[in-house]
């Protein structure tokens, strides 16, 4: 039963990882940008949530109503300024520039908020509560909610990409941005919208991780970005639902690793990540998700 529990925990954790990963995958799929600051931006989202709760006393769960639009706006602005400028100089430049952005964010957080870890809503019943099935399986409310949110986010993204005007433009620009220009579309604006979606979704991941574990200035790169990368690679580059599959595989591998020996949790996840890179570099869902 302990193994079954580990697998269930792993699957649910995969939802959290999908929230980390889907924006990273979207930005890569649309503008070929590997955003190395992706995790740090999630942490910013979490810190903003902490700030909002402290100042306005809104319920923790509702902080996302403010955090997501703020982060989406930040995503649009960052894309139209820093990242677009780098893109104009070549895709490789974006790696260096987003790495720089990551360092600035981490050190900025360290400077203004110290290296202390901060949790979000640590004493909420939602965060600590769980229900049990039998004697060995315990399912946390928060993890279950996060998984539900992840599925809802992916469904929403898929609907937006396949049905809306801007979703169509995002896919068109990803296919051929010059041809999109000839149809009157400013691809820079479309890129901005894709970045807004990316940061809006990863902000949810940042808040969830802050509730699930906690955040500190380096969580962005040493946890969120790495897990996002692993989930994207395992699931398949540019595939939306692949990020959930990848997240679930990563989560299950980690939990099984932890079941063998608690210190093997991360190692087991990265071994699966490496195995997929070697054996199936295109990822488990190889084709780009066709809505």
């Amino acid at each position, binding site marked *: 039963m302990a193994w079954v529990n580990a697998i269930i925990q792993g699957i649910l954790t995969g939802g959290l990882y999908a929230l980390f990963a889907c924006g990273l995958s979207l930005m890569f799929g649309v503008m070929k940008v590997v955003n190395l600051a992706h995790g740090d931006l999630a942490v910013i989202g979490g810190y903003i949530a902490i700030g909002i709760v402290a100042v306005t006393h809104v319920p923790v769960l509702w902080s996302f109503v403010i955090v997501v639009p703020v982060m989406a706006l930040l995503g649009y602005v960052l894309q139209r300024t820093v990242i677009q400028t780098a893109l104009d100089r070549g895709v490789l430049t974006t790696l260096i520039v987003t790495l720089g952005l990551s360092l600035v964010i981490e050190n900025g957080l360290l400077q203004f908020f110290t290296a202390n870890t901060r949790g979000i809503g640590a004493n909420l019943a939602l965060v600590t509560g769980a229900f049990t099935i039998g004697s060995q399986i315990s399912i946390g409310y928060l993890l279950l909610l996060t998984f539900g949110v992840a599925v809802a986010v992916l469904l929403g993204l898929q609907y937006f990409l396949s049905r809306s*005007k801007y979703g*169509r*433009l995002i896919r068109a620009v990803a296919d051929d941005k010059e*041809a999109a220009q*000839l149809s*009157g579309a400013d*691809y820079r604006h479309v890129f901005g919208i894709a970045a807004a979606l990316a940061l809006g979704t990863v902000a949810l991941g940042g808040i969830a991780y802050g509730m699930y574990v906690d955040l500190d200035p380096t969580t962005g790169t040493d946890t969120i970005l790495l897990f996002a990368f692993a989930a994207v690679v395992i699931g398949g580059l540019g595939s939306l639902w692949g990020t959930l599959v990848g997240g679930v595989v990563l989560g299950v591998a980690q939990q099984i690793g932890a079941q063998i020996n608690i210190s093997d949790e991360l190692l087991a996840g990265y071994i699966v990540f490496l195995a997929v890179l070697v054996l199936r570099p295109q990822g488990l869902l190889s084709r780009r998700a066709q809505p």
Partner: protein
Amino acid sequence: MSTPGMDVKGDGGTPLLEVRDLVVHHGQLRALDAISLRVFPGEVYAIIGANGAGKSTLLRTIAGLHHPTTGSVLFDGKDVTGLRPERRATKGIAMVPEGRRLFGSLSVEENLKVGATYARPGPWTIERVYEMFGWMRERRNQPTAQLSGGEQQTVAIGRALVANPRVLLLDELSLGLAPVIVQRIYGMLPQILATGLTVLLVEQDVSQALRVASRIQCLLEGRTTLEGRPADVTADQVEAAYFGLAGAAAADRPGEGSEA
């Protein structure tokens, strides 16, 4: 053989599209060297020339995809040289690019919808495109990758038309298509012109260009070598301009270029 574009407004009118002394470089290479042209409303203006003559570069520069070193592009009397391609598109310059360049992961209808997103008001709608090409309606949900080359070219033209442009730039429509398909695609031109469009096209197939154009201009290594109405130029002149046989002298050479 009367083409709707034959009754061209004389030189007294304002050109819809004008290119003045355009010089474009690709790196060190001078791709276009002081090219000028004037396209009047209702015309079918054809740029002909061999591979590498600079035809596509000229069209792409007019669409805004290349930046000229010097010279200017005027649309409806206004200088658009500094405008981005998408701004020119919304002002009424639409281009069907070489190689069709459809959005491969989008369906036929989605391709048309992208074309219509920033459309100017006008007669062309997706519905009208479907009326013109019945097969497209039936296959509107198919990915464009499943279409034949000729069908893809037609969708590419439809995608440009639904933007309701004033001038349509057609880059090498015949490229990679069977002659019978090329005939069929050019056969649609009168219907398109009837809605008030002006066409500037680039074509490697000279006889095709001479058939449909009201005016032609031949490029050779980035320079204009011949310009005029198809009726006013001889086959010899075209041949000399196309291949660069020392200009008009080629026509005088005995035994060459005589009446076919």
